[in-house]
């Protein structure tokens, strides 16, 4: 009898102090029946990855509005790889210019949600990505 729940880490790396978006997503995922670990503002990539490891999450969601997204996302993906945690899905949101997205995807980010995205889309992405990964 499996009682598995999807576990997601929502973190805000970097220096900007706007966490409303992250909180809205955290709440929506909870409403969708997921367990959301919320670590708050000003996280370093090292802290994000350590939390992902200890909490054994299926996915890490990063919210960045400071403009430093390329560096922060890439660093989180690198650290996950170093720890053989590349099966953890990385997704992100925030104010991220369209032209930066391809590079983020190449770095290992699985999806980027820009302002205006409905939380339903995020939930569907996670259910799909986590479901398909576990059967592979």
């Amino acid at each position, binding site marked *: 009898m499996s009682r598995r729940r999807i576990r997601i880490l929502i973190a805000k790396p970097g220096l900007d102090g706007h966490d409303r978006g992250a909180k809205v997503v955290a709440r929506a995922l909870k409403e969708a029946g997921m367990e959301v670990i919320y670590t708050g503002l000003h996280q370093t990539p090292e802290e994000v990855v350590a939390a992902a490891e*200890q*909490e054994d999450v299926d996915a890490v969601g990063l919210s960045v509005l400071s403009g430093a997204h390329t560096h922060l996302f890439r660093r989180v993906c690198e650290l996950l790889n170093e720890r053989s945690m590349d099966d953890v899905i990385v997704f992100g949101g925030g104010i991220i210019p369209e032209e930066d997205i391809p590079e983020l995807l190449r770095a290992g980010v699985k999806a980027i949600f820009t302002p205006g995205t409905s939380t339903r889309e995020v939930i569907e992405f996670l259910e799909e990505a986590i479901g398909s990964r576990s059967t592979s």
Partner: protein
Amino acid sequence: MKKPLAPDRPHSANDLAERVLAGDVRAAARLISLAENEPAQIRSPLQKLFPHTGKAHIIGITGAPGVGKSTLVDQLVERLRSRGQSVGIIAVDPTSPFTGGAILADRLRMQRHGTDSGVFIRSMATRGRLGGLARATSDGVTVMEALGKEVIILETVGVGQDEVEVAKYAQTTVVILAPGLGDEVQAMKAGIMEIGDCFVVNKADREGADRAVSQIQSILALKELGEGDWSPPVLRTVATTGDGLEELVGTIDRHLDHFTATGEMERFRLLKSRADFMSVLEETLSQYVLEEMLSDGALERIVESIASREVDPYTAAEEILARLQA
């Protein structure tokens, strides 16, 4: 549906046990997930870990929502680390009874310890368990001990009056309150006011701290203590600044010494073992009955016959028992 180390491969669960004993954090995290998701799969790895456990000092931190439990835990960890002790933390938050989801945010206040390899923080949702902890909390303690953690802190959900389970699992229970609870402290006479080995009035820089301390003291004074019994002190802290933390750590140390010196430790080991065994026994038995005897709609048929008053719940359960004995 789980990651590469899938629970349908029991040998991989045993590998996890070996890796935990070798200090592998990720394996420990996986094993705790397994305890939460697939309790049947934890049996064999736990068997391997069990002989390596039973020595850690387990500290329970409990209290109403918003009194500052997580911030206090953060400060406590700081002091335990400064004297070189490795620390595991299980922080429990409630599961939504409606969606099954949860927001686990205790870690937010402890993140500065997140990258310290001497600290392992695990957030856990109650998943419907009452009592202040999660069903997998006890297994989580076993895993953290096997990983080598010397002190394990159990932070309960924000509790009301009656969620006292932590006292069964922690040698030292710290009950946190805050000023301004007023007469509610009086109403707490039963339940959590009886389990504290130490009471803390946090946010003691706020108005009403003196009154809170004296209220707690007056409740504690009602308890008759025998000679040599531990008398729970009432401390003041300001967790955001760390004021009063040295005294709290000192009190926790003294309590552990007292516990060990007076033979309380032995009694605690028996109580905890009983709680562990009863919980697993209940679960194993009810799962057996549900899967072996009440599958294929039998449970629903019994429920309907109780609803229509053809049979009462006691008689229905007796009938199941009779079938078990046959």
